[in-house]
C-alpha cells in the first residue's frame, strides 16, 4: 500500500478506486454483500456465507465479488444479504438461511429473477 502524504494523494487514491469500481459495475459483474456483524453471525451469517461460496464454486459462477459489511440496524432480519447486479439498484434480502442463499444464487444471480418473498423494502 502507498503512504498518503497529502490531501491530493488521498483524493487521487479515492478517484482511482472509484474508477476501478465503475469499470467493474459497467462490465456487468455481480456483487454479493453479507452483513457480518455479531448479530448477523449469531443469526447464522457464516453458514449463509459458506453456502454462497460453495454455490459459486460448484456452479462455476464467474465475475462475482463476495464481500462483507457490518450490521445495518435491522438485527431482527438477520442474516441480511445484499445483491448488486451490474448497474441495477441494490436488492436487500432478510432472513437468508443457507437454503435461501442458494435460491438467491440460482434465481437472482444466474437467472436475473429477484426472490421477492425475502426482499426487505428499503
Amino acid at each position, binding site marked *: *500500500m*502507498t*503512504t*498518503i*502524504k*497529502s*490531501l491530493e494523494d*488521498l483524493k487521487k*487514491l*479515492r478517484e482511482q*478506486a*472509484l474508477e476501478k*469500481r465503475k469499470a467493474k459495475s459497467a462490465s456487468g459483474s455481480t456483487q454479493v*454483500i453479507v*452483513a457480518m*456483524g*455479531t*448479530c448477523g*453471525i449469531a443469526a447464522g451469517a457464516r453458514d449463509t456465507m459458506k453456502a454462497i461460496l460453495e454455490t459459486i464454486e460448484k456452479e462455476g459462477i464467474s465475475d462475482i465479488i463476495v*464481500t*462483507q*459489511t*457490518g*450490521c*445495518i*440496524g*435491522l*438485527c*431482527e432480519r438477520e442474516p441480511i444479504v445484499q445483491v448488486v447486479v451490474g448497474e441495477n439498484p441494490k436488492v436487500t434480502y432478510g432472513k437468508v438461511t443457507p437454503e435461501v442463499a442458494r435460491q438467491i444464487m440460482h434465481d437472482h444471480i444466474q437467472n436475473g429473477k429477484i426472490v421477492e418473498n425475502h426482499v426487505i423494502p428499503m
Partner: protein
Amino acid sequence: MKHTRAMVLVSGDPLSLERGAMDVYNRLQDEIKAFGIDQEVNVTLVPELGRHDAAPLVVVYPEAVIYGPVKPENVHYLVEEHLYKGRVAAELQASVKELSGKIAWLTARKGTLPAEQRIVLERAGLIDPTSVEDYIVHDGYQALGKVLAEMKPTDVIDLVSKSGLRGRGGAGFPTGTKWGFVAKAPGSPKYVICNADESEPGTFKDRLLLEGDPHCLVEAMVIAAYAVGASEGYIYVRGEYSLAQERLHLAILQAKEMGFLGKNIFNTDFSFDLHIHSGAGAYICGEETALIESIEGKTGQPRSRPPFPTTHGLWGKPTLVNNVETLANIPAIIRHGAEWYRSFGTPSSPGTKVYTILGNVNMTGLIEVPMGITLREVITIYAKGMKDGKAFKFAQTGGSSGSVIPASLQDTPMDFDSFNKAGVSLGSGALLICNEDNCVVDMAKVLLNFFRKESCGKCNPCRIGCQRSWEILNAISEGRGKMEDLPVLMELSANLANLSNCGLGQTAGTPIHDILTHFRAEVEAHIRLKVCPAGVCRMREKVLR
C-alpha cells in the same frame, strides 16, 4: 404485524374536550376504519398539545402538519385528503405554525420523519469494514487531511464547540469544552482514550460502529489527539467484543501502513500511536476513572474526583475520555461544518442519537434519529408499534443507569435538557419498551440486583445501599413488604444519589425513585393487598395464608 406509517395526535386538554375533541377523536377512528387504513394509521388522544387558540388540535405525522380548530364534520375531509390521498388539507390548517405545548419543537423538523438521519452510522452496514479503500471511497480520512493541512488545534476545538456536540456516553457533557480543558492542561505527554466498554445491558450501538466502520473511530481519534495535543491513545474495548477488536486491529494496521497513524501523519510533524486495550468484563470499568485504573493495570475502581481526568488521567497526565458515538460524529462535523451539524436535533442538543430498541415492540434493533424525537414517535414509527396491540406502560432508558419513564411522559422530546427538566435521564441510548404485562417492582428488583453485583464496593452508600434496596424490593415482590419500607427505600435512593462516589451509585437509586413517583399504587398493591397487578411477581404461599 401492524406497520404504522402515520400518526395522528388529538389534543385532549379540558378546553379541547369542551370544544368537542372527543367527537373528533371518535370520528377520526371511524373514518380511518372506513377508508380501510386503520392498520397503517395510529390515532391517539394526548393530554396537552398547547395552542389553546386553535383547539381542538389535530397533528398529523410524519409531516407534522397542524390542523385546528377541527370540528367533527371536518374529519371526513381531513382523513380523505391527508391520510388517504396524502395531500395537506390546507383549508383546515391552523393559523399557528408552531405549538406552544410540550411538543412545540416538532415543527422545527418538519418532514424529517420518519426517515432516519444517519451521521454516526452513515457507513456502517454499507462499506466493507475490512477494507480501508472502501472507507476512503466513502469520504474517509478527508476530515483528517483537512485538519492537518488547514487547521490549528484551537480551530478544531472551536469548531467542535460551535457544533454543540455533547458526550454520548451518558452524561451529555459538551465535547468541545472537554477538549479545551485537556488542551489547556499543563503536562505531557497527553492521552486520548476512547471508551468502548459499552457494558450497559441492552446497549449495542457502539459495537455496531466498531464492527461496521472501525476506520471512522481511528480517524476521529487522530483528530482528537491533534486538537488536544496528545501523542498516544487507547481504545478500551469491552472484552466480549471479539469481532470489534479484530476489526479495530486490522483498521489500525491499515491506517499505519497508509500513514494515517504513526509518525509524521500526512507528512506533517504530528505523530500519534493508537493501542487497543481489552476490558475484562466489569460494568464499572466503563466509568472513566475506573477505566483509566484498569489500563494502568490496577483494580477497576473509580477514583475520587476532583482532580478530573482532563488534568490528572492516565499515569496522572491530562487525558481525554470520549465515548465511541461521540467521537464518530467528529469526522462528519469537520467535513460539513458546525452549521450543518446544528441543522439536526434541537438547539441545546444538536445532532443525532443512536438508540437500541428492545422490549415488547414489533421491531427491535438499532436506529439513528435526530435528537429531540419523542418516545411516542420511536414506539409508533420506528418500532412499528407495540407487540400484539398491547398498551405501553413504561420505558427504561439507558441500559440500567437511566430512568423509568411512564407513559405520561412519552411526549417529552428526547434530548439532554428536556429530559433533565422532566427529571429523567437518557442514559446510554438503550430503550427498553415495556407493556402492561410487566411489573415495576420486578423490574426495579432486577436492576438493583445488577447494581448490587456490579458495585465495586469502594464506598458504603453504594455497596450497602444497593444490597439493602434489593433486599427490600425482593421482600415486596414476594408479598413480605411493609408500608414502612417505602420511606426507607426513598431514603436509600436519595443517599445513593447524594453520597456515592461515582455514577454507578449515583444512578442506582433512580429506578426506586421513579417507580415510587410514577407507580406508587402498583408498589403498594404488593404490600397492602399482596397482589402483583401485572401478574408477574410470585407471592410466597406462606404469606398468602
